[in-house]
């Protein structure tokens, strides 16, 4: 079950979206997030939906995968929905039972929030699905490189991200293994009160932590053996190159963003 997490995973391919410059994809994703958050009515959200759908159509990422990436956030989604349903008291009551009331506005806001969160996850996942982590960190490094002047270790931060992304699947696998090992020894993982649940997590976290520290030490040595000496003088096999598709996509995104701002304004 823990292996179902697809967040931050890359699915190699050769679509237009895959071949786009990672820097542009990153900027477009940020504009997309802005688009979703300033969009304050249904039409604005529909524009966001059309944009996401278009992006997915161009990316040849199977729809099944989108559904899969939603799974881990279902609890968060349920929680926000419940909070919205019960906390919003303005509007017409649709349902009343003692002091609990659900209004039409509450339902509307809940649906709105669900769609917004789903779009947010779908859109940002598309970035990591179609961009190799190395290209992604490269793009971040390049976009942040002006900050090098302020002595911010941008290359080193990018390297840290590369490694973090590389080790997510490894550590997930390891967590699975430790959990099975503890269960085999009779540990009760899913039952009980909150206190018991917290207690059950400790025998997983500690071995995981110990192993992560050991891995880090070994990885550092292996990196030294391969002549790693920080970002200075490093070259890249894959150069980030921007082309027509990148500028066109950016233009389309800006157009959609403008549309959302316009819709907001006339509302």
């Amino acid at each position: 079950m823990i292996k179902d997490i697809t967040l931050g995973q890359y699915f190699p391919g050769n679509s237009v979206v895959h071949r786009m410059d990672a820097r542009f994809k990153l900027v477009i994703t940020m504009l997309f997030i802005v688009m979703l958050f300033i969009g304050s009515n249904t039409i604005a959200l529909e524009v966001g939906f059309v944009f996401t759908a278009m992006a997915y159509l161009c990316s040849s990422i199977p729809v099944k995968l989108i559904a899969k990436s939603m799974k881990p956030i279902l609890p968060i989604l349920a929680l926000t929905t419940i909070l919205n349903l019960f906390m919003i008291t303005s509007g017409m009551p649709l349902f009343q039972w003692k002091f609990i009331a659900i209004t039409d506005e509450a339902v509307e806001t809940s649906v709105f929030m669900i769609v917004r969160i789903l779009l947010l996850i779908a859109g940002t996942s598309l970035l990591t699905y179609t961009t190799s982590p190395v290209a992604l960190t490269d793009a971040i490094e390049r976009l942040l490189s002006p900050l090098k002047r302020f002595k911010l270790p941008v290359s080193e931060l990018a390297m840290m991200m590369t490694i973090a992304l590389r080790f997510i699947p490894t550590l997930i696998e390891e967590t699975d293994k430790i959990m099975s090992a503890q269960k085999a020894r009779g540990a009760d993982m899913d039952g009980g009160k909150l206190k018991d649940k917290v207690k059950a997590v400790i025998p997983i976290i500690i071995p995981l932590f110990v192993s992560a520290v050991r891995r880090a030490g070994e990885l550092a040595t292996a990196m030294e053996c391969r002549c790693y000496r920080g970002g200075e003088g490093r070259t890249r096999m894959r150069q980030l190159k921007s082309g027509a598709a990148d500028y066109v996509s950016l233009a389309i995104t800006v157009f959609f963003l403008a549309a959302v701002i316009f819709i907001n304004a006339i509302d």
Partner: protein
Amino acid sequence: MEAFAKAEKLDFRYSDDDRLVLSGLDISFEEGEFTAVLGHNGCGKSTLAKHMNAILLPSGGAVYIDGIDTKDEDKIFDIRQKVGMVFQNPDNQIVASIVEEDVAFALENLGVEPSEIRRRVDEALKAVNMYEYRNHAPHQLSGGQKQRVAIAGIIAMRPKCIVMDEPTAMLDPVGRKEVMATVKRLNEEYGITIILITHYMEEAAKCRRVIVMDKGKILLDDTPSEVFSQVELMKSVGLDVPQVTELVYELNKSGLKLDTHIITEEECADALIELLS
């Protein structure tokens, strides 16, 4: 001929008040050699390995790689490019989430031109038969495949020597075979000097030279058949011998007179057939 790698009176301790992990160790490796290093856990094999590319520096004595003293800080990256290192756990050596990006890592660090990196990465991946996996993520590969990717990441630097610290210890029999075949080919076809630390006696038996370490010193340094014929000495330092050698040893103990230098199954079978006919 001057040896490619040489340790002279090498002393090493991990911290000043610690005991000597390596003491007065003398060893040299010629270019193109294939050597196995054996020794009980904690005898200092990994410590010696890390001296070969200046990850550790001698506390006393000196190590020379291709004539360069490893203490020479200006040449440290020359040394690391000449002597690559492969470790036990392939997972902890792979830096990037895509195979080919990982193989490119060392070359990127060395500041090689992008087009040249591309060429050498393809070449290295083909050399370890992992070219068709170049776009895979490491976690989609088997242990043996991951270890071959780690080897590709090293040979992309075009090293003259590769030190392998128990590269097959975490692999299943299939992975072990793949890795050993790859290493053998690198030695034979590319002339890369191989120093293989292992505790599989069968792997050591296939090398041309076997070194046995004990308590931070070199105990034996000879051909596999000479080394493994000394069954009692090997057992006294906590090591095994190949099954064939063990068999010959036991048979001789019970009165037969077989050649103690037998290390391959064929030799053993031939000797037994001769004895029985």
